[in-house]
């Protein structure tokens, strides 16, 4: 077990190294002088020189990469080209709304999707099952920001049940905060819910056709017992795998959802950074989110053992 965890941890090193090399190498690979491009159209030669010095573009590539990597490992993500402030601090200020939104979406999605998928599998080929599958295909196809506008229009503008846009931090009132997060959570979760519903249904169907389920029924276990005691326990592993790999959807989706609902999170920071061509911020955001994604999937791998004691490392 311990050796597996160590090996698995070591495997994340080359992955993160590729991510770092990619976001860093892009600066040198893109055609033209990145300093001129990042400086924008009405930049003075001093601006360009300053950007070139900030990014260290006057040094050889490997030396630059080595220095940069060294800084990152010490928690220094460089400074913003626009504000001059450390990127680390700028991201840290925006983390709370984004993480709150993502964690809420994760919890809500799993709580909706797993029972929905289980029920659909239980009522296989009945109307309920068909309906759930149809909705799942639909939410796969309607982009999360379109779902966002649809929800904001219906429940915010027309029915006036919930705030249309904006964000209230937890410190300014728990309920007010939750109210502003309900619609973004559903919008961001729409694709994620569809994904988890489909995998829950598929794995439960597979499990229900196993021999031991037939045995359980033969010895007189009722429906409830079969579902809760025998079947559901064995569907956890594929579901948490999808929950983990689906975190990529949440990250991409958060950037767009924050724009729709005017939430001042990391996504908004990134979108503002695109307009200002503030590459260090984009670099920092990518490194952080990729690291988060790798970490989540590492946790998922280690969780397998908890949910299925048969798995040996």
């Amino acid at each position: 077990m311990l050796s597996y965890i160590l090996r698995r941890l070591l495997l994340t090193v080359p992955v993160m190294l590729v991510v770092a090399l990619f976001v860093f190498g892009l600066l040198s690979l893109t055609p033209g002088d990145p300093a001129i491009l990042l400086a924008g159209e009405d930049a003075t030669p001093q601006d360009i020189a300053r950007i070139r010095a900030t990014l260290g573009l006057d040094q050889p590539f490997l030396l630059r990469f080595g220095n940069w990597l060294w800084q990152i490992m010490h928690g220094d993500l460089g400074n913003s080209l626009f504000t001059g402030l450390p990127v680390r601090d700028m991201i840290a200020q925006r983390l709370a709304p984004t993480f709150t939104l993502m964690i809420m979406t994760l919890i809500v999605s799993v709580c909706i999707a797993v029972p929905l998928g289980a029920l659909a599998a239980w009522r296989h080929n009945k109307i309920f099952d068909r309906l759930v599958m149809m909705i799942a295909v639909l939410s796969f196809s309607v982009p999360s920001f379109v779902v966002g506008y649809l929800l904001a229009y219906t429940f915010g503008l027309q029915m006036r049940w919930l705030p249309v846009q904006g964000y209230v931090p937890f410190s300014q009132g728990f309920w007010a905060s939750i109210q502003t997060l309900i619609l973004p959570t559903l919008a961001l979760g729409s694709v994620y819910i569809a994904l988890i519903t489909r995998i829950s249904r598929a794995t439960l169907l597979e499990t229900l056709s196993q021999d031991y389920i037939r045995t359980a029924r033969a010895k007189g276990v009722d429906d409830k017992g079969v579902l809760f005691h025998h079947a559901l326990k064995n569907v956890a592993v594929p579901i948490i795998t999808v929950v983990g790999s689906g975190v990529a959807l949440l990250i991409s989706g958060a950037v767009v959802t924050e724009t729709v609902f005017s939430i001042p999170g990391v996504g908004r920071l990134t979108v503002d950074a695109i307009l200002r061509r503030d590459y260090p911020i984009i670099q920092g955001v990518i490194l952080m989110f990729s690291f988060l994604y790798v970490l989540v999937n590492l946790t998922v791998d280690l969780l397998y053992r908890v949910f299925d004691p048969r798995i040996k490392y």
Partner: protein
Amino acid sequence: MSAKQLSRFILKNPTIALGGFILGLLLLTAIFAPWLGTVDPTSLSPVYRTRPPSEKFWFGTDLLGRDVYSRVIFGSRISLTVGISVALLSAIIGTIIGLATGFIRSVDAVVMRVMDGLMSIPTILLAIALIALTRASMQNVIIAITIAEVPRVVRLIRSLTLTLREQAYVEAARAIGASPLRIVFQHIFPNTIAALTVQTTYICGLAILAEASLSFIGAGVPPSTPSWGNIMAEGRALWQVKPYLIGFPALFLSITILSINMLGDGLRDLINPRFAKKL
């Protein structure tokens, strides 16, 4: 295919037929955009700013008085070009890398670590990084999304190659002296085409979604180009009073992705009937 065979195919595969039909209509719309009652999608007429949908302006006009109907119709060209280009490019590049890594074991470890790394960067962010460093253009959007999608194809083709290369008929081919290249292209590649087609269809849908998301947040095709994402980005400031500015492009975008996903699901079921019963 005779008419009878065609009708039987449609009855047996309703999702392929419906998805393909809608996609066909959209392709025709894109090709014949200038003849579908549209005006120049970029021509400004400040007199007719933000008019609601009417007989003259079917989908209304935007902030600058441009006809939203014409912009949405011309926008289908951008979406479909990006979707199809990304799908074809990532299929070709991904297949070559996938076959190579599956067959030449010495490069496998290195290439797969690179792919793992690329896959751990969320698509939108990977594209944002590329776009921030280059000028906004459709070509750069296509390149950015392709880089994000290639690893998915590589994984699929590699895992298929690893299974196929152990098959008895591959061993037989090797025994009679077939060259490695012949084995890869004559015996392994043809058996990956079915799964590759399904994957390519899904990638087309994902690419259209990615382009729209990127344009929506201002990191996609240049704002002067009428694309669905751009139209929605421009409608953002006014959507509470003029919801149609976002509604019409959103509707077209959703129907396009839905038809592509239906086509993909149908093809998947056709290729793998056992799987079809479950998903």
